[in-house]
């Protein structure tokens, strides 16, 4: 029973529910009280002990159903066909089975593990066989399965545990004596069924313990893949990744803001103010850390040259506006326009599609775009504003707009440029990174989620 619980917790962990050791002990105590018999009650109790937020609850429910339905499957399909076949040739089969069973047990040297496989296969009792399979699965530690490539290996190992070799020997001996021996045919059929049952069980366990491992691996790879090379079908996963990252950063930086807000006694001002009370500290003055509202003006290039990554740059921009309270977002290719409202009111996919539709795919004009930015947001850019530009700085050999950017730089707290191209490609062809880069405080390549995380974190930290 405890083994069942331990395996269940393992399955939960595989499904990304974080279960600590202390919680597993609690779970065991709860099971002690509640028992395994009433499934509804067990589910409620374990859910309350093991799953501690809404996401976890959903995952817990799915996992619980999968696990406890596989642990208590009704008799396998073999049992039903068993009855039909068994009824046809009953007395002879029974006698044979007893003989063969004894012989196989002797030959295989498999004493102690109960009845031999072939007699189990021939008997009408499906549950005994089921038990043997479960035991064999436990012996080969099926719960450690992690990859689908291990499937064949585990099936083979379980079969070995069940002493399939002895069965094969018997089969060969039987068919050597008589090609169409009915018993051999029947055994062969049962063996096929047995393998199917075991394969099913292995698949179930794989789903239980390893379904998430693939997903996790994928996420890890995605984090390091250059944005340009990520496929559209991974967009959902990417968004989830970026959102999770944003959430973590919010938690981190929200806390910092609270701490910064707390004051200390400002002794100088207190003394000055209390002169009128004869120097008695009557009216206290507290030091206040001014919370300067971080302001970000973000500009994203969505032109043809960055078509590959525009989608992800916008996704990034969208998550920046989720993390930092005051963000004005702009997008441009040949013209520049504000998309702040779009980002605030529409869900991410809509917002990105609309942005690409409205402003995307033109020939880039950095000169025009930066001038327009100055006109639209110039008044809003002051000593607290961080200007964030996402683009490859390829301006089709026209005016790169470095003068406009220099003026913006003079007004802003700082200007950051994130370039989706690797550093080696900067300044090649029509890239104006050298000219534009001198007007920025920092220029960084932003090629994957890992870069992205580092950059957002830095902005949020210094912007607060």
């Amino acid at each position, binding site marked *: 029973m405890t083994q069942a619980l331990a395996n269940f917790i393992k399955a939960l962990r595989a499904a990304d529910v974080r279960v600590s050791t202390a919680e597993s002990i609690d779970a065991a105590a709860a099971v002690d009280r509640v028992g*395994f018999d009433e499934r509804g009650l067990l589910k409620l109790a374990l859910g309350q002990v093991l799953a*501690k937020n809404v996401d976890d609850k959903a995952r817990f429910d799915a996992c619980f159903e999968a696990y406890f339905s596989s642990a208590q499957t009704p008799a396998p399909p073999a049992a039903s066909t068993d009855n039909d076949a068994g009824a046809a040739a009953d007395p002879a089969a029974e006698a044979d089975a007893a003989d063969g069973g004894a012989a196989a047990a002797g030959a295989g040297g498999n004493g102690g593990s109960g009845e031999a496989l072939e007699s189990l296969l021939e008997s009408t009792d499906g549950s005994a066989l089921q038990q043997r399979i479960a035991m064999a699965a436990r012996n080969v530690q099926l719960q450690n399965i992690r990859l689908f490539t291990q499937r064949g290996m585990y099936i083979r190992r379980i079969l070995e545990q069940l002493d399939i070799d002895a069965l094969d020997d018997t089969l060969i001996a039987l068919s050597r004596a008589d090609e169409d021996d009915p018993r051999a045919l029947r055994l062969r059929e049962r063996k096929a069924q047995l393998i199917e049952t075991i394969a099913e069980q292995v698949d179930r366990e794989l789903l239980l313990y390893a379904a998430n491992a693939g997903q996790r691996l994928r996420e890890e790879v995605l984090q390091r893949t250059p944005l340009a090379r990520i496929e559209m079908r991974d967009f959902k996963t990417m968004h989830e990744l970026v959102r999770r990252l944003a959430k973590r950063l919010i938690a981190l930086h929200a806390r910092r803001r609270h701490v910064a807000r707390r004051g200390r006694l400002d002794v100088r001002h207190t003394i000055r103010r209390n002169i009128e009370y004869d120097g008695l500290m009557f009216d206290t003055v507290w030091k206040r850390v001014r919370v300067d509202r971080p302001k970000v003006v973000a500009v994203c290039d969505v032109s043809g040259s960055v078509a590959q990554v525009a989608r992800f740059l916008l996704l990034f921009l969208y998550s920046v506006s989720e993390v930092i309270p005051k963000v004005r977002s702009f997008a441009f290719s040949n013209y520049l326009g504000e998309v702040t409202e779009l980002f605030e009111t529409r869900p991410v996919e809509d917002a990105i599609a609309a942005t690409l539709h409205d402003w995307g795919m033109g020939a880039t004009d950095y000169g025009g775009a930066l001038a327009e930015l100055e006109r639209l947001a110039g008044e809003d850019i002051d000593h607290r504003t961080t200007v964030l530009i996402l683009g490859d700085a390829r301006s089709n050999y026209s005016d790169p707009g470095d003068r406009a950017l220099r003026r913006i730089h003079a007004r802003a707290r700082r200007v950051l440029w994130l370039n989706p191209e690797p550093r080696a490609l900067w300044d090649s062809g029509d890239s104006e990174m050298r000219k534009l880069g001198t007007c920025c405080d920092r220029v960084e390549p932003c090629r994957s989620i890992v870069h992205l995380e580092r950059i957002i974190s830095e902005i949020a930290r210094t912007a607060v």
Partner: protein
Amino acid sequence: MLRSGQGSCLLRAAHRYFEVSNLTDKGSADLNAAPQSRARSAITAIQKGFADSGYIASDAIATVVYLAQALSKPVLVEGPPGVGKTELAKACATLFDKPLIRLQCYEGLDEARALYEWKYGKQLLYTQVLKEKLGDLMAGAHGLKESIARLHEFDDTFFNEEFLEPRPLLKALWAEHGAVLLIDEIDKSDQEFEAFLLELLSDYQISIPEIGTVRAKHPPLVVLTSNNTREIGDALKRRCLHLYIPFPDSPLEQRIIESRVPELEAHLRTQLVAFVQGLRALDLKKVPAVSETIDWARTLLLLHAQELDAQLVRSTLNVLLKFQDDIENVDAEIPALTRAAAKR
């Protein structure tokens, strides 16, 4: 609550039943009786006890109360506002007949407010009194060293339990026959306070630097509630049982209304609940909760309404919805929702 005489009698019966089953639960570990049947009967008893005091509990709620008692663990209750999180603690207090001690959390809550405070005034007063006595005590002592040695012979007069002003947490630990401690809206407090609670939640004890460790005489039943305005730390969650109370489904909500506003006619109640359930499916800023449904039921009762119609709904919608935006957005949907509700 209304039928107090009969209610409290029933309540006591349920309470006794529960305690008995609880006792057998502890006593007969070696008797090998099926544990689940005992657990089930205890849970049913809790549900019944709650129902008698007017709190309709789902299976999940009753189970968590049972487990909290059986494993003596705190319960963290989460869910949207107005589904009866705080109410649960009150109902527990009535059911187990224990005092309810409530600590409302807010930003900046510190241990002086939550745990204890020294009675500074009393301490000052005592120093004044002692000053006069000091002369007598020191009589016959030669030199400073001897006087100090003599002073040291006395216990620490100022920092002992006499001068301690207990705040909710300490009160709950000191409670003679146990208590129900409600720590309300834990998500509103700072992270530091959350960390400070950990010792209380895992061991039912608290360390006071000047005195030492205060242990609970009788572990209180601790209920923490959270609206999830911020994520509660893992360390705290690990120490608690976790209960999520969602909006009730239609039958449960009907039972709740029936228990809280028994005077309301059955068919109007069905319509009202169907309407609110329909309203929850819409995209609203603030979804109406159970407490709002109850308020609305009371409103309709006051107005002597017989039937739910669009006009009536429009004029009383501000009881259900608390944002002007929501009221305006819903306006167009009202006829359809009312019609759907009236069919029930």
